[in-house]
């Protein structure tokens, strides 16, 4: 394998990791921007999505199984998110640190629940046959590079989700409400926007997208009770780098984190790449403490 092929391969890996991180971080960033709430159980939404897609593949066979898995994962995780919002998060409004701890409690219970139901060892989702190949290069500068269809599929799913979310926010009435609440909650409320419903909707769409990420991840790795924990800390870093409430910023940040970690892994071990990533994020906030893209505001509220 030539140098170009190795570098291209790592860039491809970076995009692949970045797209999963993006699917997880989108929901976090949206609800953090809107409600100033971080859901520590967000990683478990990914896990739930993974297990739901496993169950879906068990019951639905044939060409529709993948579609059923993604649909099932999205709807299931979204409903669970809605339940979480209604039962816990809404009551802790304005106490972000307490929300963080309470949702951490939820996360622990969901993990243990999964361990009790499915066992500590992961379950496998077998990707359909048409996803099992890879785009391989045999000649030219890219000789030796191979890009699995599954990863290309995941990147495409992420792009579709991103486009749909952008359209939702910029073109629909509920998207308009979302932007209004994001800019000025009190004023939006005064003008008749049902802010509670907007919160609920955004939160559950966010957890639903995390569920999609779980279904996507299930295609390349086994689903375990702690699968969410492996990704969630990086997703938090994406949120910090991305800034609040901007899809574009979150996207850039996810690519930044994905590319940096896969680039550094070329030279060192995975754990040293993690150290480097954390240092980079801390250096980054020295220059842009509020993320790549942030809403300028004269509001004196503490972030």
């Amino acid at each position, binding site marked *: 394998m030539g140098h170009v092929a190795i570098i291209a391969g790592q860039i491809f890996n970076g995009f692949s990791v970045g797209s999963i991180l993006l699917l997880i971080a989108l929901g976090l960033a949206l609800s*953090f921007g809107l409600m100033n709430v*971080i859901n520590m159980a967000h990683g478990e939404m990914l896990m739930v999505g993974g297990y739901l897609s496993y169950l879906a593949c068990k019951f639905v066979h044939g060409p529709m199984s993948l579609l059923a898995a993604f649909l099932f994962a999205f709807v299931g995780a979204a409903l669970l998110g809605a339940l979480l919002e209604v039962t816990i998060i809404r009551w802790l409004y304005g106490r972000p640190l307490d929300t963080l701890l309470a949702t*951490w409690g939820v996360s622990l219970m969901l993990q243990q629940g999964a361990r009790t139901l499915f066992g500590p060892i992961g379950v496998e989702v077998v990707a359909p046959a048409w996803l099992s190949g890879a785009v391989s290069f045999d000649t030219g500068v890219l000789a030796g590079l191979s890009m699995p269809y599954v990863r290309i599929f995941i990147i495409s799913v992420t792009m579709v989700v991103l486009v749909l979310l952008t359209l939702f926010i910029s073109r629909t009435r509920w998207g308009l409400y979302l932007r209004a609440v994001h800019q000025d909650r009190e004023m939006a409320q005064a003008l008749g926007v049902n802010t509670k419903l907007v919160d609920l909707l955004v939160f559950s769409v966010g957890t639903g997208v995390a569920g999609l990420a779980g279904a996507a991840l299930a295609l390349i790795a086994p689903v375990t009770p702690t699968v969410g924990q492996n990704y969630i*800390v990086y997703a938090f870093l994406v949120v910090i780098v991305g800034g609040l409430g901007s899809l574009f910023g979150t996207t850039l940040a996810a690519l930044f984190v994905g590319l940096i970690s896969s680039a550094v892994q070329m030279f060192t071990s995975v*754990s040293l790449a*993690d150290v480097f990533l954390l240092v980079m994020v*801390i250096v980054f906030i*020295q220059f842009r403490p509020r993320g790549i893209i942030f809403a300028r505001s004269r509001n004196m509220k503490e972030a």
Partner: protein
Amino acid sequence: MKKWIKIAFDVALFVALAMAPYFLSSYHLSLLGRFLAMAILSLGISITWGKAGILSLGQGVFWGLGAYVLAMHLKLAALAPGDMPDFMMWSGLDHLPAWWNVFHNPLVALTGVIIVPTVTAGVMAWLVFNRRVSGVYFALLTQALALVFSTLLISEQAYTGGFNGLTDFNTILGHDIIDPGFQRAIYWITLLALAIAFILCRWILSTGFGKVLVAVRDGESRVRFLGYSPAAYKTVAFALAGALAGVSGGLYILHAGVISPAMVGVVPSIEMVIAVAVGGRSSLTGVVIGTLLVNFGKDAISSAIPELWQFVVGALFILVVTALPKGLVSLPNVFLRLKSMVFKPSKARALNSV
């Protein structure tokens, strides 16, 4: 409650703890000793989180730094001169790294237990707070730090002992660690350290510094407009919590005899926070009691039904945060309020009828 009742309660608590070696079995005494060491760390969380409003999900890192520094010394002290720890030889190192050798000197090691975590915590806090990043972001960054720290410890096996960590300590300052008499002495030393830390924290909170910390929690911008630097105050508070965590970690391994990455990662770090939340985050007495209760609870539950503990701790998080945010110490006040709710209406009616 009146002030003297509180002080009397604290004194009674410490006297009871000092008597414990005469009543407890050596197994339970060892547990109590560990948990008292953890309580020192909890005091630090109480100052940063309860008073200054800084939530750290990475206290395990500073605790672990203190523990590892002392463990390195103990590991070296257990060896014959010129020998190397066994895991280093397995990993193919041919000589002791210099940064290990420094801790051969007990004085360096004992100061290192305090200095290393303090400096790490201070630097981390200053880099973040100086850029006015705080609140949720800080919590997430400290959690990332805990993750990075534990994975680094596991992967650098040649230098850290990897997943198994450091163990097999047998001597400190010429004393035999496993000796029951010395274990009892370590218990009293731990209790003394806790008492000193307790009084120190109480004193700090009574000074102007403590008042500014509370003001930073309740209105950081206002404090800044009044001419203070909130970042400096928060950094000092966080460094202090780091120092307490380091001392706590050092004392803990004298009781436990082992330190490993699984004890310093994301999950243990957050369990340190729940202990504080259960007791009452802003009450020093509360966090000591909370730490003892939660840890004894954990020991009892996880030795009886291991799967249950995670459900219990998860439910504890949700319950304490939603129903009892000020922790167990606020229970008397809750009862008083309930009492007044029950009895006030009748009084009001009596007045109206006059």
